[in-house]
């Protein structure tokens, strides 16, 4: 599971061409988009969301529901995304 999370973090960094950030800097439970009350999170925006959606599909072979709210839940954090991928991955 922790391998998958590291892989997810790498995909985030590579696909969005993030600078100055390493997988170790990303907190598993912190929001990917925006930030939480504690100020944690990657602070990505809605344009990044589209890009990341495509990257996750390509890298992990999972598809997402067209229902926006549901998809949003899966992208809440690296933890949530890892859980969704391991549950839905065909491989």
């Amino acid at each position: 599971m922790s391998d998958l999370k590291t892989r997810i973090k790498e995909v985030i960094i590579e696909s969005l061409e993030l600078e100055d950030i390493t997988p170790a800097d990303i907190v598993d439970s912190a929001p990917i988009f925006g930030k939480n009350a504690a100020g944690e999170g990657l602070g990505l925006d809605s344009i990044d969301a589209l890009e990341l959606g495509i990257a996750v599909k390509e890298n992990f072979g999972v598809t997402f529901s067209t229902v926006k709210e549901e998809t949003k839940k899966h992208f809440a954090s690296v933890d949530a995304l890892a859980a969704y991928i391991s549950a839905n991955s065909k491989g």
Partner: protein
Amino acid sequence: MKPAAGRIFFTAISVLYPLIVYCGLEYWGLTPRRLSIVLLALAFYHFLNFTQSKSHAERGRTAIFVVLIFVCAFVAFFADNILFVKFYPVLVNLSLLSFFGFTLWKPPSFAFRMACLHDMSLEKSPSFKAVERYSRKVTVAWCFFFIVNGSIAAFTVFVGSYEIWTLYNGLISYILIGIVFIAEYLVRKMVQNKMQSYVPVCDLELDSRPNGALVSFGSGVDAANAEDVAANVAGLKTWGDFVSDVSKVRYYLESRENTPWILHCEDSYYFTVSLLAMLQSGRKALVTANRQEAFIKEIKKPEYGFITDEPFASGVLNADEMPATLIQDVLAGKCAEGKCIDDKCAPLKFGKFDKSKAEMVMYTSGTTGEPKAVYKRFLQFENELFELVKVFGNDWVNRNVYSTVNHHHIYGLLFTALLPIATGLPFRRHRIDFPTELANIAGDAAVIASSPAFLKRLSAETDKAIAFKCPPIIYSSGGPLPEDVARKTSELTGYWPMEIYGSTETGGIAYRQSKNGPVWTPFEVCKMSVAENGCLNIKSSYILEAEGFTTGDLVDLYDDGRFLLKGRSDSIVKIEEKRISLPEVENRLKQTGLVQDVRVVPMMGKRQYLAAAIVLNEAGREKFAGLPKLTINNFFHDHLLKFIENTVSPKKWRYLEELPQNTEGKIRMRDIQSLFGLAESPNFKILKFRREPGVLTAKLLFPATSDYFDGHFPEFKLLPAVVQVDMVLRLARNFLDVPKELSKMNRTRFANPILPDVPVMVKITYDADAGKVTFAFTSVDGEIPYSNGSLIMNAADSSADEVANRG
């Protein structure tokens, strides 16, 4: 009697009138009735004048005067009353008062009409307004005098004896008039000394100035230092030298075919001599600040001449391919080609030229885009010089001109080469490069043409006010001068810098001192309007195109022609459909109080985004000392999100020691953008850089934590040669558009080790034709060479890994 003789006769009677009356009464025993005949005669004389006066208003005025004299004469005659005989001087004062007063009401004032009669060129001189203002004051003074004098005259009519009346009106009053005349003459001389003399550059002749008048001087400052004194003596040039040097260059130019000449001289004196010679000989002058071989090749056609004051380093330039004429050789009479004048008897060639035919080309980089040639007729400069002397000239009297800017660009050209020549103010031949040099000229009354770049450095590096004997006049142009820098400059020098807003295409447009607010006052000849895209359009006598020139600057234009600049039109960008003003993001970042300077630029990668290049101030450096870059990024990102949407908040960040400027002191968007083209890694940092065509200089730092030092060597970390070459290639590809692959390394030497955490300088040049990249790593002060060499690039697809193999 002839009219002239009659005029003199009656004027004499008018002047001697008090004496005639006195003698008549005291010695000749005449009655007031008989004396009134004299008055009557004067009345007739004035009546004749009245019939000859032309203007309507003038006739009305004299009519009243004539009627009043007649009335006095008649009353005196019929009543045999001496009182009315004595009224004449009062009436004369009244008449003069009404005459002078009338010209105040309907200008030009009387004194100004007289001044114009005296000096016909006055109406065409830039001091026109100043003389007019002064003449008005003189006219007012005379009116005041006539009121006082007339009142005293009236007083003597009613009070006191004939003697007192005669003494005052026949003597004292005339003495007073004489005193006022002399006083005015003295004041006028004083005022004239405070007015800037001026001769249009195209009208300069051999005898425009005295032969011994100082034209330029060297940069030695210390009177106690023999070298400094020698430098100064060698640098001194008088009008006689100037005329003779221009003449020598003219003989040289005119002995050769009439072709355009490229001009680059670092020394302002040589520059001005060469330029004037070209203009007077009718040679088109291509004035370039950039002397890089690649650039010169680009603008130089084979037949063009090239005059300069610095020989190219041997080997850099192929002499056959690009012959350059050294002006020193021409002046010394030993040039290889063409004719040099060594005959001392040859007549001096120096004189007027046709300003509307003389051609020049200037090169501008602008804030974006490639270097661009801007075509000029000298007429445009001449018109602008006139305007500058009109607005600022009287501040310059008896000052020396200093410069911190390059005279190959329009602002430097006007302020530090052409203006001194047109006004006769001596100029220093060499630029002031360092703010510390200002202390050396503190004893001199100076005009300093400077720029925001220099003044920023001055205010950052100087704590103590410079003890100027008299505060210098400082101009700033090339970009907006931040108000805090202007304030600090004023604290340090005693003068709040005068900013000039303009461009190569338009010349000077407007001026301001930001202590009086951010609004710009246009030069009188500039007609402002707002173009369709909201940008400022200018029409003026220094723009040849009838439709004027539209700048890239957004503007708020007021009814009186003054205006406020709202940033560049390209400063509003769309990021993923969202409009954002770059200056707004920059200002929000400055709000943190941690940022000294910042540029935000739009970037295009997989998506559109903004990127920010930041120079931290002292508070910022203190706050973030030792913190990882991500923490600093997050701090600014979090701050911005309070004001703007996440999408338009910068995604990438760079922290530099200073923002990159070109030779004009401008920060180009293109340069900042290319900084983000090279992904930053924890392995190296770019602290500052400067990009000119074909050349990159950068200050780099390799932190001890950098992967580059891994295993190289555990006991003694130093930067591997392969990394240095790889770094050169990465920088060259990113900043200098070197598209080719490395094919060969030449003459590469690694002299001294580059250690972790020690900043280094690297200079990389790229010769596109030869496909050659040359590099040199040195210490920051340039004293220690670390490594240097050259790399041959090949369009053929050779492997980039080759570098690694060779390292």
